[in-house]
């Protein structure tokens, strides 16, 4: 047998062993050393099962650490134990394939929305609704996207550009993301410690007046979150597909005349704030 074929066989068996899920039955995550492939163990010197368990635990705890760090808010709401269970279910279906450990989370938010239980059990009595989990994951993701966004020069409007605004779309900066929350999760996240903590935080009561929207953006190297009124959020979403006059016209539909006047005034302020926050990186001519 060639060296590479021998390696393929050894690495298949070894990989299967170190990806075996850890047992949760005792309340402590433990390697299931009795389940390792006997043929693999026979080829290892000394106490093969205890030694393989080191790699088995490392595989899972390293990945759990990435999930805790990437999803600080969601981990706080689930508690690390429930987050580990969710991450393990995801990783069994979608093990990491890339070079970068941090990318092991890719696809998790989508998976959680489709596959996580409707109620995530938190201990014997408490539960977290899947909707809250997914909302928290999306907020965590927004922070990551903003952190990883490349530096782009912010749009600076000259006099000629003001004229172009009627025919051009604003190009959204990658360092600004809109998020919606049913529960006050953005504020909750801001109060969490910077490092992932091994503690559970209760889901707060939902907003009385329905969902709220926030803008997560970056000023210099720091994150900033800006609360948005429903109209403001709608304008920002419309501006992704339409010119400013088109977006304003859409917002005005159904408004009383005095509300239209008021909207125009507020829109001017929002637009000026948006320029200052660097929400746009340029103008794109509409075809």
């Amino acid at each position, binding site marked *: 047998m*060639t*060296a*590479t*074929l021998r*390696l*393929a066989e*050894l*690495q*298949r068996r*070894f*990989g299967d062993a*170190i*990806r075996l899920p850890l047992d949760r039955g005792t309340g402590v995550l433990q390697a299931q050393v009795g389940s390792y492939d006997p043929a693999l163990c*026979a*080829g*290892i*010197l*000394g106490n*093969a099962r*205890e*030694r*393989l368990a*080191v*790699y088995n635990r*490392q*595989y899972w705890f*390293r*990945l759990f650490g990435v999930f805790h760090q990437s999803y600080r808010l969601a981990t706080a709401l689930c508690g690390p134990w429930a987050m580990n269970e969710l991450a393990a279910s995801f990783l069994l279906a979608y*093990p*990491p*394939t*890339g*070079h*970068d*450990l*941090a990318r*092991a989370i890719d696809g998790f938010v989508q998976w959680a929305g489709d596959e996580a239980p409707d109620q995530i059990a938190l201990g014997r009595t408490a539960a977290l609704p899947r909707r809250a989990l997914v909302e928290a994951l999306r907020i965590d993701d927004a922070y990551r996207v903003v*952190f*990883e*966004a*490349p*530096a782009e020069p912010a749009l600076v409007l000259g006099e000629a550009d003001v004229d172009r605004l009627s025919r051009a779309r604003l190009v959204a900066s990658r*360092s600004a993301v809109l998020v919606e929350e049913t529960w006050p999760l953005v504020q909750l996240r801001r109060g969490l410690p910077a490092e992932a903590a091994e503690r559970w935080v209760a889901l707060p009561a939902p907003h009385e007046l329905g969902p709220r929207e926030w803008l997560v953006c*970056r000023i210099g*190297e720091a994150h900033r979150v800006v609360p948005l009124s429903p109209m403001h959020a709608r304008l920002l979403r419309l501006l992704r597909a339409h010119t400013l006059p088109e977006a304003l016209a859409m917002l005005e539909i159904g408004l009383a005349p005095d509300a239209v006047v008021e909207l125009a005034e507020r829109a001017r302020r929002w637009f000026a704030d948006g320029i200052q926050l660097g929400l746009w990186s340029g103008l794109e001519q509409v075809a």
Partner: protein
Amino acid sequence: MFEHWPEVGFFEIISENFLDAPGAPARHLARIRERYPIVLHGVSLNLLGHADPDEAYLDRLRRLADQLDAPFVTDHLCWTGAHGISHHDLLPTPYTDDLVALAAERASHVQRRLGRPFGLENLSSYVAFRESTMTEWEFYTRVVRESDCWYMLDINNIYVSSENHGFDPYDYIAAINFSRVLQTHLAGHTRQPDGIIVDTHDRPVCDEVWKLYAHAWKLGGPFPTLIEWDASIPAMPEVLAEMTKAREVRE
């Protein structure tokens, strides 16, 4: 870091964290590069995977090395993934003649592709295979010699593996040709209740490793030395104190 700009000779980055680096990490790296040389240390080359090295990955690694003008690049003499799955761990193989040849051929190819010296790091390992026909240091030294590559010698890993597999770490050090050492690593480790030592990089270097380092320096110094501390990271002064200790041990 950006407040104190410590007096160190260079920094090492985990290559994979900065391949096509996005946003803030890239900007931070650029600021550091303005003041210090940066060397690249990979954890996903998968030199001893059953599949050939990933050429697209090597392209990206070369671009990063060129962009940072890295004097050299290092990775591990191990496998990290197989059958399409990345385990994000540094996994050992048996030590056999045919794997010396395979590893040497691939390492040589990697060095050519990167256009600069390529150093191979010895592992901390927790298993040893019955199939092995030679010691770890025989395997390591033969791969480095036959590939015409270099050593990225991890002193802590020698100690960890010597405790886990019952060999004399000074025999290991004696086998190294120090004229081919690009760099050394020092780090802290953790002894589990069952006696196995795990390479955790989460605490100060222990006395036994300092002694081994002093011995290596006496045999083959000077060589660049890096303290690896990438878990439970303390404040910068505590990490720098380890660097100061390394200087003292050398004197």
